[in-house]
């Protein structure tokens, strides 16, 4: 391992590669901040540029863009409640309320430190655990993945619904239904397209996330006559720029960061799970661990509620590289794009990469740590300026949110059908928001829909159509048991609350 670290450091610490990490982090942050242009778009844009570099440099640049975009996504989640990536949806639960209370600088600082700590800790875990972690991933089978996705969806429905579990479950089903539109991945049979060619490839994730978050948020602000910028108008530039975290908040973060980084990292390692599940699970776990007084603050600007998903999503980013590099299986949509780039370099990812191209494997791991330091240096001083976005008057902010959303979709497809579809989904989402139907479960279900179907397909085919696969393996049974426990716990809590009332 020491030899590997040295190889990694030698490659990552060349002037060119340090410059690439810096550029990647900087552009990633800017692109990630723009709602609609998340890490996938950012990395996809980088692929043609990286073809001129050697594989290690190209991947280091893309890794920098990835971290930068995730941090940038957190920034737009906190400031605009418009997460550009699903991994930062949970960040908006407490980050946005905190920003609305006039603590945008603080929220961004908590996010920056949590991201840094999460990323750094996970890079250390990765250093020590990389060889054995591939074995953990290898031990997972389709039934386990399917069960894990059921667990993730149930957990998000239970934790984000504020006592409206059935509404959240309806949103989960709606998200899965939206994900089923388009060609079936195996047979290429079109489903729910109603002979519309524009739907053949399915509905884009960015479209759904922009419609249900950014656009419907903008419409809700107008509809409810809210002014999200009023808080910013009341505070001075110094207050807006305050990034100081007090002792009490630091104490909370010290406890949250280690446990969330472990969850984030472990979930990130599992192929397909990624930053989204990691951040939601960390958020849910944190909410259950903290005391009742702190629990009440969740959703209203809790430090723990912001720190947990931020730590976890960055830890998951590092973790998601493990299956991609060691197994050749992408851990997330973003690493899938990177996998494509890796193949473009003529590098075959998989267990042999470790031996044949150790400089690629180790330099990426080392550049993760360098990237985290650069992100922190880059973002903390810029936070007061980034936070000024909130001071833009509502009359300007709303059209600009709509503009970024529509542009985000337009540059992806160059087709006006997607714009109409986005407006349609946004109108429905705005109406449902009025009646407290939560949107995060819909997003998570939409992201996981394809993978869930794929794993159910494999499980059912392997078990010859029998549902026994759900309890045949101990691991699957344990995950499902956890799911059942979450549901029972939620029902018990709801009933107990009612009785108490």
């Amino acid at each position: 391992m020491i030899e590997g670290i040295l190889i990694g450091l030698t490659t990552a610490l060349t002037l060119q590669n340090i410059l690439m990490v810096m550029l990647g982090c900087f552009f990633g942050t800017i692109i990630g901040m723009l709602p609609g242009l998340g890490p996938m778009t950012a990395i996809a844009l980088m692929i043609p540029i990286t073809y001129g570099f050697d594989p290690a440099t190209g991947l280091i640049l893309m890794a920098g863009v990835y971290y930068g975009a995730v941090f940038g996504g957190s920034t737009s989640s906190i400031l605009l409640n418009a997460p550009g990536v699903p991994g930062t949806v949970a960040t908006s639960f407490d980050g946005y309320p905190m920003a609305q209370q006039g603590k945008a600088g603080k929220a961004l600082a908590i996010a920056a430190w949590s991201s840094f700590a999460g990323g750094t800790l996970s890079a250390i875990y990765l250093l020590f655990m990389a060889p054995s972690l591939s074995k953990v991933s290898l031990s997972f089978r389709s039934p386990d993945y399917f069960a894990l996705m059921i667990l993730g969806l149930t957990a998000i429905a239970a934790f984000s619904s504020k006592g409206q579990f059935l509404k959240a479950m309806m949103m989960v089903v709606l998200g899965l239904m939206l994900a089923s539109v388009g060609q079936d991945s195996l047979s290429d049979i079109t489903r729910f397209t109603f002979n519309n060619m524009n739907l053949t490839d399915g509905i884009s994730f960015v479209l759904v996330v922009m419609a249900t978050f950014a656009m419907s948020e903008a419409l809700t602000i107008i509809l409810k006559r809210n002014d999200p910028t009023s808080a910013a108008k009341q505070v001075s530039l110094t207050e807006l720029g305050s990034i100081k975290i007090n002792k009490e908040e630091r104490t909370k973060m010290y406890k949250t960061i280690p446990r969330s980084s472990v969850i984030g990292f472990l979930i990130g390692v599992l192929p397909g799970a990624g930053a989204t599940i990691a951040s939601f699970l960390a958020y849910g776990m944190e909410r259950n661990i903290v005391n009742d007084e702190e629990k009440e603050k969740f959703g209203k600007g809790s430090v723990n509620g912001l720190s947990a998903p931020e730590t976890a999503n960055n830890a998951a980013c590092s973790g998601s590289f493990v299956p991609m590099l060691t197994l050749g299986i992408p851990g997330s949509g973003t690493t899938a794009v990177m996998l494509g780039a890796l193949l473009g370099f003529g590098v075959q990812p998989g267990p042999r990469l470790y031996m044949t191209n150790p400089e690629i494997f180790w330099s990426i791991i080392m550049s993760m740590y360098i990237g985290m330091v650069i992100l922190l240096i880059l973002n903390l001083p810029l936070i007061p300026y980034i936070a000024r976005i909130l001071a833009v008057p509502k009359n300007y902010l709303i059209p600009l949110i709509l503009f970024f959303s529509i542009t985000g979709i337009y540059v992806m497809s160059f087709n006006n059908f997607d714009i109409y579809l986005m407006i349609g989904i946004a109108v429905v989402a705005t109406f449902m928001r009025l009646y407290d139907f939560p949107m995060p479960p819909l997003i998570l279900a939409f992201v996981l829909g394809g993978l869930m179907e794929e794993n159910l397909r494999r499980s059912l085919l392997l078990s010859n159509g029998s549902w026994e696969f759900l309890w045949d393996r101990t691991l699957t049974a344990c995950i499902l048991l956890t799911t059942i426990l979450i549901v029972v716990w939620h029902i018990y809590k709801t009933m107990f609350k009612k009785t108490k009332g």
Partner: protein
Amino acid sequence: MNINTTKVISLLFFIFSAFYLYTAYQIQVFAFDENAPFNARTFPIYLGYAGLFFSGLKLILPDSNTIKVQHKTLEYKKTVILIIIAIIYGATILKVGYFLTTSLFLFSSYYFLGERRWVLMFLLSFPFVAAFMYLLHGVLDIYLRDPFLQSIGVMG
């Protein structure tokens, strides 16, 4: 009579799930796949039943947290205008081009939301879009079709 809107939404979702389920059963699969343990219609069928189950439960069970929305206080007029502007934007962007439609979309949105600082409105529409377009087209190399700019010779 007071109608619980959450129940109405649940009823609509129930009907939607029934339609989804019906459509799922209509998905054409290959003859050799018809009796396979899993084919293109299996997952959608489960989803249809899940939708019926959860929305049915929501309909049947008492709603303890009834959400009451004060419709009179909501700003429908501006919201509808904004949606119409966005639809017009979507309808014209391909024919007219990104620069002009986006600038006009922003300018008209500011206007209908009540803004009257003309200089600021102008700066945050036409020059802003030009700068953003340069970032996308010139720096990030994302092709943006613009018949208007092509017709006046600004874009090649």
